[in-house]
């Protein structure tokens, strides 16, 4: 995705490790950010709509891949397709749906023209209204591929809405990991916020996801969630970030109100003025200031 020109700024929230609090923080940003479009790019575990009081306005099918289908009436069981398939997706003239990557080599080598490629509906794209602004989200069917393409579609749709309706920000709730959906969530963004926590796992993943930000030249910022869990690791994160020249914009303490709010389907900011809400407010102010300057 190309860098967005003009006034729309894209901010992507990622973490490497899952469950550090990305979605809870993005949900809280929703109640703080004026003029923002939200994009849930964790398309195979899309949870942001659950705390944004979302009402689906439009739903459309996402078709980006094909799977092979063998017409048994035409098949002479020559085995050419099986030989040439690099994914071991054809055995005894049957296509394994999950192993087939849709490369269509089988359909091209079949001497009988018995193999056709069929479009697969891999998921759905949604545009929802929320009290906080428009939300673009998706559902990737469990087991499907092409999550990166669906992420790109979610971002493009959010970008269109932002341009057409004059929004200042697109806030992207990214997926865990460092693979294709993360790269698709990150490329061309104005800045990224990495949500980490003071655990040995989260720190390890922070390092990995930071190198992805650097690789794709997206300016990173860091915030530490559950910062009161283990002080020594907070010190480690602080030292690491100093060394890497990355600014830590917030420290959010463990706060049972986050889960209480979640159970009510609300972000913690706006639900109650607790310790976490106060720190998330400060984080948002600092972040918005930095992103405006990018």
């Amino acid at each position: 995705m190309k860098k967005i020109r003009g006034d729309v700024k894209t901010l992507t929230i990622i973490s490497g490790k899952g469950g550090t609090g990305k979605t809870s923080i993005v949900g809280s940003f929703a109640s703080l950010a004026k003029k923002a479009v939200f994009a849930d790019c964790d398309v195979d575990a899309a949870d942001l709509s659950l705390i944004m009081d979302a009402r689906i306005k439009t739903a459309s099918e996402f078709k980006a891949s094909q799977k092979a289908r063998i017409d048994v009436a035409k098949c002479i069981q020559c085995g050419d397709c099986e030989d040439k398939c690099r994914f071991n997706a054809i055995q005894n003239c049957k296509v394994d749906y999950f192993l087939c990557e849709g490369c269509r080599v089988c359909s091209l080598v079949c001497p009988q023209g018995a193999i056709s490629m069929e479009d697969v509906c891999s998921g759905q794209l949604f545009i929802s209204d929320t009290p906080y602004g428009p939300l673009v989200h998706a559902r990737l069917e469990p087991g499907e591929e092409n999550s990166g393409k669906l992420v790109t579609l979610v971002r493009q749709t959010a970008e269109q809405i932002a341009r057409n309706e004059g929004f200042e920000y697109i806030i992207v709730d990214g997926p865990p990991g460092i693979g294709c959906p993360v790269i698709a969530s990150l490329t061309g963004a104005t800045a990224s916020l990495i949500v980490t926590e003071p655990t040995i796992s989260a720190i390890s993943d922070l390092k990995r996801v930071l190198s992805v930000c650097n690789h794709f030249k997206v300016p990173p910022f860091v915030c530490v969630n559950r910062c009161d869990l283990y002080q020594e690791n907070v010190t480690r994160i602080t030292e690491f970030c100093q060394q890497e020249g990355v600014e830590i914009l917030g420290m959010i303490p463990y706060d049972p109100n986050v889960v209480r709010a979640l159970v009510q389907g609300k972000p913690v900011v706006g639900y109650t003025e607790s310790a976490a809400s106060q720190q998330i407010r400060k984080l948002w102010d600092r972040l918005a200031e930095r992103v405006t300057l990018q």
Partner: protein
Amino acid sequence: MIIAVASGKGGTGKTTVAVNLALALQLENNVKFFDCDVEAPNAYLFLKPNITHSEPVVTACPTVDGTRCTFCGKCAEVCAFHALVVLKERVLLYPELCHDCGGCELFCPQNAIGKKERKIGIIESGLAGNIAFFQGRLTPGEPFSPPLIRALKRIVSNDSIVILDAPPGTSCPVVTTIEGSDFCLLVTEPTPFGLHDLALAVELVQKLEIRAGVVVNRADIGDDKVDAYCAKKGLPVLMRLPYDQELAIKYAQGMSAVGVLPEYQQKFSQLYQEINVLAR
């Protein structure tokens, strides 16, 4: 017996469950542990293996022999992934889009296409106590983890207890990991997020026809809807782990429950007994 530990939602405690299960079983069994979360591998932080072997994992991508190519465009036509674009006097290659299906090589009328290897990550192995430990590490910036996970899984043999620590989500990296397992443990937490993503993971294991059971982590936070869902679906809840601040602090430092509190040894051995019954 191959046991995959998956979750849908990230950060529910997959690695915690997988590591503790391995630690609890290693005294009396042959255990092999595979960290298949190659984008964010963390089990090594807890099992602390002595890594003695490391090898690169490569995928292939096409090369074009300029002296043979006539720029006919056949390769670009057959490539379903747009990894080649043929211009008037040039072929542009996008190796990171290539799935190594072999189509371009197979159909080039000039035999002008060869392949070269591209490193996408490494596989490391070693011993962690009695546990044979294996992990994949995807190189940051590389988009596709399934080839690396497939390379890891080629080492899996069913002659011992095999534990696969899966990545979060429900898309291709998870499918690649859990496919072919005898049992899938789904780790969740009792919150709306945990429930939503558990339901997706359950859809996936049903599609793949893998037997599954649930572990509820931080079982005392949130609400009781995960239990209601499991009851409705007939999914066995095999274990509940309460939130324990002291254990969370130990976890933050890379210590695991079985190593810290002896009753967890018993709990996780019991979990395996139940899996053993259900998987048959």
